[in-house]
C-alpha cells in the first residue's frame, strides 16, 4: 500500500503547500471579483467603464509589447555572437549577463533613476555637448519605463537564447553552407527557424514579466506612467478597494495564462524539429 503510493507521499508536502497557499488564495482572490450584488461581471464592467483604468491597461500592454520586441531583438543578436564566441570569452560574456540578472530589480531600476534624473549622467552629458541648455525631465515618461524594462529583461533573453542557439547541431549549419547557402541565407532559413521555440519562450517570459511588473514602473514611471501593477497596489493599499485590486489581479492572471498557453501551442506548431 505504502509502496504503491510512495511517490505521492514523498511529493505531498510540497504539492499541498502550493495548493493551500498559492492555488486556493489566488482562486479566492479571483472569486471575490464575481461577488458583486450588481451582477456577476459588475467588477469588470466597473474596470472597463473607467477611461483612466482602460488607459492604464492599454499603456501596460503597449509598454510590455515594445519591451518584449526590443528585448528579443537585442537578446537574439547578442546571444548569436555569444554562442559563436570561443570558450573563454563565451564564459566571460555569460557571466556578464548573469551578473545583472542576479542583481535585484530594485537595484537595477534605481540605476535608471540615477541616470535619468535632473542631476543624472545623461542630462549632464546632454548639457555638456550642447544638445540642450537645461536638464530635460526624462524620468516619469513612457520611454524611461521601456528603457529600464528592456534593461531588466535583456540578460534573460540573452541567456535563454544562448542555450537555444548552442543546441543547434553544427551539421545542420555546415550542410546549409556546403549546399551553397550564403551566411545570410543560412541565418534566415536555418538558424532563425530553429531558434523560434527559444524566441517564444523568451517572449513569454518578458511579456508576462513586464505586464505584471511593479518596482520598475513605480520607480521610473511614477504616478504619471501608472501600469497594472502600480494601479493594483494603489487600489489595494491607498484606496482600500480590494475588489478593484482583485479585478486587476484576475485580469493579470487570465492574460498571463492565455499568453503562456497560446505561445506554447505556437511553439509546438512552429518547431521545425517536431515530428
Amino acid at each position, binding site marked *: 500500500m505504502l509502496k504503491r503510493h510512495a511517490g505521492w507521499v514523498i511529493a505531498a508536502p*510540497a504539492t499541498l*503547500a502550493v495548493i493551500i497557499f498559492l492555488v486556493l488564495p489566488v482562486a479566492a482572490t479571483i472569486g471575490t471579483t464575481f461577488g458583486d450584488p450588481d451582477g456577476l461581471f459588475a467588477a469588470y464592467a466597473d474596470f472597463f467603464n473607467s477611461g483612466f483604468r482602460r488607459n492604464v491597461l492599454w499603456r501596460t500592454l503597449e509598454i510590455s509589447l515594445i519591451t518584449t520586441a526590443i528585448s528579443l531583438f537585442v537578446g537574439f*543578436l547578442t546571444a548569436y555572437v555569444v554562442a*559563436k564566441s570561443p570558450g573563454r570569452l563565451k564564459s566571460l560574456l555569460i*557571466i556578464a549577463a548573469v551578473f545583472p540578472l542576479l542583481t535585484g530589480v530594485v537595484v*537595477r531600476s534605481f540605476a535608471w533613476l540615477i541616470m535619468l534624473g535632473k542631476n543624472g549622467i545623461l542630462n549632464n552629458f546632454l548639457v555638456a555637448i550642447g544638445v540642450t541648455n537645461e536638464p530635460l525631465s526624462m524620468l516619469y515618461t513612457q520611454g524611461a519605463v521601456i528603457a529600464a524594462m528592456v534593461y531588466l529583461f535583456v540578460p534573460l533573453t540573452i*541567456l535563454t537564447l544562448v542555450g537555444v542557439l548552442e543546441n543547434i547541431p*553544427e551539421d545542420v*549549419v555546415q550542410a546549409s553552407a556546403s549546399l551553397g547557402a550564403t551566411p545570410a541565407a543560412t541565418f534566415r532559413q536555418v538558424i532563425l527557424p530553429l531558434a523560434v521555440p527559444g524566441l517564444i519562450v523568451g517572449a513569454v517570459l518578458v511579456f508576462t514579466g513586464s505586464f505584471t511588473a511593479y*518596482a520598475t514602473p513605480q520607480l521610473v514611471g511614477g504616478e504619471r506612467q501608472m501600469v497594472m501593477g502600480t494601479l493594483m497596489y494603489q487600489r489595494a493599499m491607498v484606496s482600500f478597494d480590494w475588489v478593484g485590486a482583485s479585478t486587476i489581479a484576475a485580469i493579470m492572471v487570465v492574460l498571463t495564462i492565455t499568453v503562456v498557453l497560446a505561445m506554447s501551442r505556437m511553439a509546438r506548431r512552429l518547431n521545425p524539429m517536431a515530428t
Partner: protein
Amino acid sequence: MMTSRIHPLLLLSTVLVYIFLMGPLIIVFGASLSDTTYLTFPPQGLTLRWFENIFKIGAFRRTIVTSLELAFLATGLALFIGIPAAYALNRYRVQLPTWLSTVFVLPILVPEIVFGFSLLKSVAVGASAPIFVALLIGHTLLVLPYCVRVISASLASFDFSIEEAAVSLGSPPIKTFFTVVLPNVRSGVIAAFILAFITSINDVSTSLFLTGPGISTLPIQILAHVEQFFDPTIASVSVLLMLLTVAVMAIIERTLGLTFLAK
C-alpha cells in the same frame, strides 16, 4: 555552433549591449562613493560615509536582519519540502502523473504581485497570521520552483540503481537517501540554496503587500527610502547587494557552473 566570422556590425552591437548592461551598475557603484548629499556621477570626492550611513538608519538595520532571516528560513523550508518532491518526481516518474511537475511551475506562472496580494487577503487578514509568517509562506513558495527544478536537474543524471543496490544490501531507505542519494546531488542542493536565497533577498512583488510600518524587507525599504530621499545611501545599499550577487555567482560557478543558467 559553427565558428564562422561574425559581421563587424554585429560585433559592435554586442559591445554596445554589454556597455548598456554594465554601465548603469558601474554608475551606481560610482555614485555610492560620492562625497555629495545628492546622487551624482562621476562621484565628486570619495567617501565611504554613505556605507556607514546605512547602518545608522534603524529601518535599514532592521530590514537587513528581516530579509536575511526570511531568506534563510524560506530557503531552508523550500529545500525541506522541495528535495523530497524533486526526488519523487524523478524516482517515481512512472507512478506519478505528468501534471504533478506542473504544480511546481505554478509559483512562476502566477504573477508574483497577485500571489502576494492573495496571501495578504487569505493568510494575513483571513487567517490573521502574523505578517512574518505570511512573508515566510510567500517566500518559501516563491523559491520552491528553483529548488525543485535545480535538484531535479541534478537527480536526472543520478543512477537510481545505486540506491536500489544499497537498499537490497539491507540499508534502510531513509538512511540510504541521506548517505547515497543526497551526497550525489550535493552540488545541485548548494546551487538551489544559493539561487533561492538571492531570489528571496531581491524579492519585491511578493513582499509588497505583506509589509507595513512594523515589518518590512530590504527591497521594500529601499523603495520607500527613494521616495523621500535622494542621497547616495541607496547607492551604497545597492553596492552591498551587488557584492552579495558576486558571492552568489562564485558559489554557483563552483557547484553547477554558471553556464547552467544559460540553458
